C-alpha cells in the first residue's frame, strides 16, 4: 500500500481533526467543570441535546447560526440544571450526570418523534449545516494548505478555544477563582468567593462547550440528528480530560491522540483483519499512551 508516504499521511490530518473536534469541544467543557470541582458526567446527554437542538433550531429559523446558538444555549441550560441538582437538591454529582444522560436520550427521541413522527432521525427537517472555512492564501500552499485550511468552522473554534480556555483558567480572575473553588472550596469561601456561583457558572460554560460539540455532529459531520448519535463520545471526552491532567493543552493533546487512534482504526478497516480487533485500537492506544505517560512521570519524579 502506497498511502504510507508523506502525502498519504497528510491526507490523514483532516480525518484526525474531524474526529477530534467533537471530542475536544466536549473535553474542554469537562475540563472547565472539573477544575471547578463539579465534574460534568452529563456530557453525553448534553452533547446529544446540543446535536438535537442545533438541528431543530436551524430548521425552524433557516439559519445555521441560530442552530449553533440553540445548541450552545441548551448545553448551558442543562449545565444549569445539573448545577441546580447538585446545589439545590444537593443530589449526588455523578448520579445527577447519569440521570441527565438518561433523560437526554429519552427526551430527544421523544421530542423528535413528536416533531417528525420518526424516532430515528430528523431527515424530514430542513436543517442547516455550519460551513467549512477556506483560509485564502494558505489554502494554496501545498502542504500547509491541507494542514491548516478547509476545515469545518467548529474545528477552528475547538482548537482556538484551547488557548482561550488555557488563558481563561490561568490568567483571568474568574479562572483563578474557579481553580481555587475546584481544589479547595473552603479556602475559596474564606477568601470571599461565592463557591456556589462559581460552580454554577462553570457548569453552564461547560454545557455550552459540550453543546457546541453536539452541534458539530448534527451540523458538521452530518446534516441531521439521529437517535443516540453522540455514540459514547461524551465518555471519550471525559477520558481525554482526565488524560490531559487538568490543562487545556494537555486535554487537546489527549483528544488528538484519541482522535488519531480512531482515525487509524478507520483506515485499518478492510485490510483483511477481523474488524472487531481493529475496533479495539481506539481504546487500547489511549491506555498504552496513559501508561507510557505515567511511567515517564514516575521516572521523572524518581530522578528528582
Amino acid at each position, binding site marked *: 500500500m502506497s498511502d504510507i508516504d508523506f502525502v498519504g499521511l497528510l491526507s490523514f490530518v483532516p480525518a484526525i481533526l474531524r474526529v477530534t473536534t467533537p471530542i475536544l469541544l466536549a473535553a474542554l467543557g469537562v475540563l472547565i467543570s472539573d477544575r471547578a*470541582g*463539579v*465534574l460534568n458526567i452529563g456530557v453525553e446527554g448534553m452533547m446529544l441535546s446540543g446535536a438535537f437542538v442545533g438541528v431543530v433550531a436551524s430548521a425552524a429559523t433557516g439559519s445555521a447560526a441560530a442552530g449553533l446558538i440553540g445548541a450552545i444555549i441548551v448545553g448551558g441550560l442543562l449545565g444549569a440544571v445539573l448545577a441546580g*441538582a*447538585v446545589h*439545590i*437538591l*444537593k*443530589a*449526588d*454529582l*455523578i*448520579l*445527577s450526570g*447519569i*440521570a*441527565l444522560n*438518561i*433523560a437526554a*436520550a*429519552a*427526551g430527544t*427521541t*421523544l421530542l423528535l*418523534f413528536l416533531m417528525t413522527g420518526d424516532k430515528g432521525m430528523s431527515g424530514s427537517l430542513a436543517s442547516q449545516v455550519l460551513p467549512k472555512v477556506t483560509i485564502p492564501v494558505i489554502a494554496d500552499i501545498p502542504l500547509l494548505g491541507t494542514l491548516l485550511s478547509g476545515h469545518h468552522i467548529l474545528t477552528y473554534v475547538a482548537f482556538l478555544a484551547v488557548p482561550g480556555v488555557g488563558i481563561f483558567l490561568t490568567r483571568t480572575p474568574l479562572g483563578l477563582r474557579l481553580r481555587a473553588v475546584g*481544589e479547595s472550596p473552603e479556602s475559596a469561601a474564606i477568601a470571599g468567593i461565592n463557591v456556589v456561583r462559581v460552580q454554577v457558572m462553570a457548569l453552564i460554560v461547560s454545557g455550552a462547550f459540550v453543546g457546541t460539540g453536539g452541534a458539530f455532529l448534527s451540523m458538521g459531520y452530518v446534516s441531521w440528528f439521529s437517535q443516540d448519535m453522540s455514540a*459514547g463520545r461524551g*465518555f471519550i471526552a*471525559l*477520558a481525554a480530560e*482526565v*488524560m490531559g491532567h487538568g490543562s487545556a493543552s494537555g486535554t487537546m493533546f489527549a483528544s488528538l491522540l484519541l482522535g488519531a487512534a480512531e482515525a487509524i482504526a478507520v483506515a485499518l478497516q478492510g485490510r483483511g483483519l*477481523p474488524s*472487531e*480487533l481493529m*475496533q*479495539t485500537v*481506539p*481504546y*487500547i492506544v*489511549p*491506555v498504552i499512551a*496513559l*501508561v507510557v*505517560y*505515567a*511511567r515517564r*512521570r*514516575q521516572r521523572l519524579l524518581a530522578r528528582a
Partner: protein
Amino acid sequence: MIRSALASFVITAVLLVVVVGIVLVPIAMQMPDPLAVLDMFVLGPFRNPRHTGNIIEMATPGMMCGLAVAIMLRAGMFNLGVEGAFFLGGLATVATVLLVPLPGWAMAPVGLAVGAVVGSSVCAVPGLLRARYDASELVSSLMLNFAALFIGLFIVNYFLRDPTAGAMVSYKIPNDARLPRLVAGTRIHLGTIIAVAGCLLGTVYLFMTRAGFESRIVGLNPAFAAHLGLPIRWILLRSQLIGGLIAAGAGGIEMLGLYQRFSWQGLPGNGWTGVVVAILARDNPILLIPAALFLSYLQVGGDLISRNFDVPSEAVGLIQALVLLVVTSSAIMRNPRLLRFITGRKAAANKTSGPKVAEGSAA
C-alpha cells in the same frame, strides 16, 4: 451507621413514590383509566408472581455489580471496568461451557470460575496499571470496557458462533450448565442466592476482616495507610481483583441463569446499573440488596405500564432519570430532623455533597 443509612433509604423510598406519582399522574390522566395506570405501576409488579420474579431476576446482577463497585470504591478506586468485566465474564463462562468437555455437574461451577477469572481482567488490568504506574484507573477501565466488548465479539464471531442461528449468537448453552430455577412460574435462579450471599459476605469482608479494614483505610486516607506501612499497591490491586471477580462472576451467572445463548452485541449496561446501585446504597453491601430490588421494582413497574397502556417507553426513561435525581437529593433526605424521626435518636448530620474524595491527599 447502617441504621442511619437505612433511615435515609426509607425516606428516599417514600419520596420516590411521591415523585413517580407526580410524573406518572399527568401521563395516567391521558389514559382512559388513570387509576389503573397508577395501580399497575405501583402494585402491578406484585400481582403476578412472574412479575415479582422479574424484579428479583433483574436485581440479581444489580446487587453483584453494585457489590463490585462498592468494594472498589471503598478502596478509593473509581474503576468503571465492572461493565466490561460483566460482559467478558458472561462470554468466558459460556465459552468454557461450550468449548471445554466437562461432565454436566461441573459445567456451571467450572464455567463460572473461568468466567470470573477471565472477566476480572477488565477490572484488574486498570488496577494493575494504577498500582504499578499510577495511571488513572477511571480512564483505562472506561477504555478497556470497549476493548473487552470488541474482543468478545471477535471471540463469538470466530469461535462460538452458531451458523444456523441466523444472528450473531453462540451455540446454545447446554441445559446441564444452566443454573437451577428456584421458584416455579418465575425465572428466579440460584444466582439470586449467590448474589444475596455475596452482599452479606461483602459486609463481612469490608467491616469484619483485616483485608477489608485495610482497603477502607487506603480508600479513606492513603497517607494514613502509608504511615502505617500498609502495602498500598497490593491492597489497591486486591480490591480491584475482588471487584472484577464479582462483576465477571455476575456476568456468568446472568448468562447461565437467564440466557439460552451468548447473544450480547453491545455492553449490556449492568455495570452502570451497578454504579447507580452502589451510590444508592452508599457503598454499604447490605443496603445493595434493597437498593437493587428497588431499582428493579421501578423498572418492572415502568415496563408493565408501557406493556399495558400507551405509555411511550421514553417516558419510562424520563421517570427513571428523575428517580435517580431524587434518590440522591440529600437536601430533603439528609434533613437531620427527618433522620431523627426515622431512627428515633439523634443522628449525626454528615454534610457531604459532591463526589467523594479521599480525605487525605486528594487524587
